[in-house]
């Protein structure tokens, strides 16, 4: 059973389009995250949700809108895609939002904007 799953695994789209990435965790965790990993492998947090409430929003353009319908799901919608949005996006979860917790990562979604 996959702990943290993301769909799709690959996403190729044109500039200006709108796309969504879905994330689900079956670990019963309270907290979920979205990260962006650029072409140089640098990993940066974008958003964090705890029990469906936004707790971290890191200077991300408002074209990116996360949505958490329940605490097991955290989806990422991106409007008006730009070339610079090309990256691998990782979803993660942790038991609680405490700093000591381990985060469990999904397999990633490779987004390519043409």
């Amino acid at each position, binding site marked *: 059973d996959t702990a943290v799953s993301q769909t799709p695994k690959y996403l190729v789209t044109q500039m200006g389009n709108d796309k969504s990435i879905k994330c689900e965790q079956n670990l019963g965790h309270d*907290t979920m995250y979205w990260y962006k990993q650029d072409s140089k492998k640098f990993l940066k*947090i974008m958003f*964090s949700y705890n029990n469906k409430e936004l707790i971290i929003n890191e200077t991300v353009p408002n074209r990116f809108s996360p949505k958490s319908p329940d605490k097991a799901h955290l989806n990422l919608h991106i409007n008006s895609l730009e070339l610079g949005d090309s990256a691998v996006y990782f979803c993660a979860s942790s038991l609680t939002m405490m*700093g000591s917790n381990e*985060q469990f990562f999904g*397999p990633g979604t490779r987004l390519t904007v043409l």
Partner: protein
Amino acid sequence: AQSVTQLDSQVPVFEEAPVELRCNYSSSVSVYLFWYVQYPNQGLQLLLKYLSGSTLVKGINGFEAEFNKSQTSFHLRKPSVHISDTAEYFCAVSPETGFQKLVFGTGTRLLVSP
């Protein structure tokens, strides 16, 4: 704010040789320290973490790390590497107080050859 520096972007090593991956951090508050590993085309998984107590921390797959507060370092070591250890290794910190917000280093690619 926190920052993490991984000085070596790539470390080539022969199988069965020892290896050390270096990590230094900067923070105005106390932090927890983590090492994560990313195998090719996969998400990250936790190798080990330092929360408190003994400064030598043992993790999975024979890895260990030593926390040095005076040098603000958290270097990762393995006495004998295997081909299967070829991966990207990320050092990360999170503040002890408040909610978890992982700040990652730029990663070190460990390349193990026969």
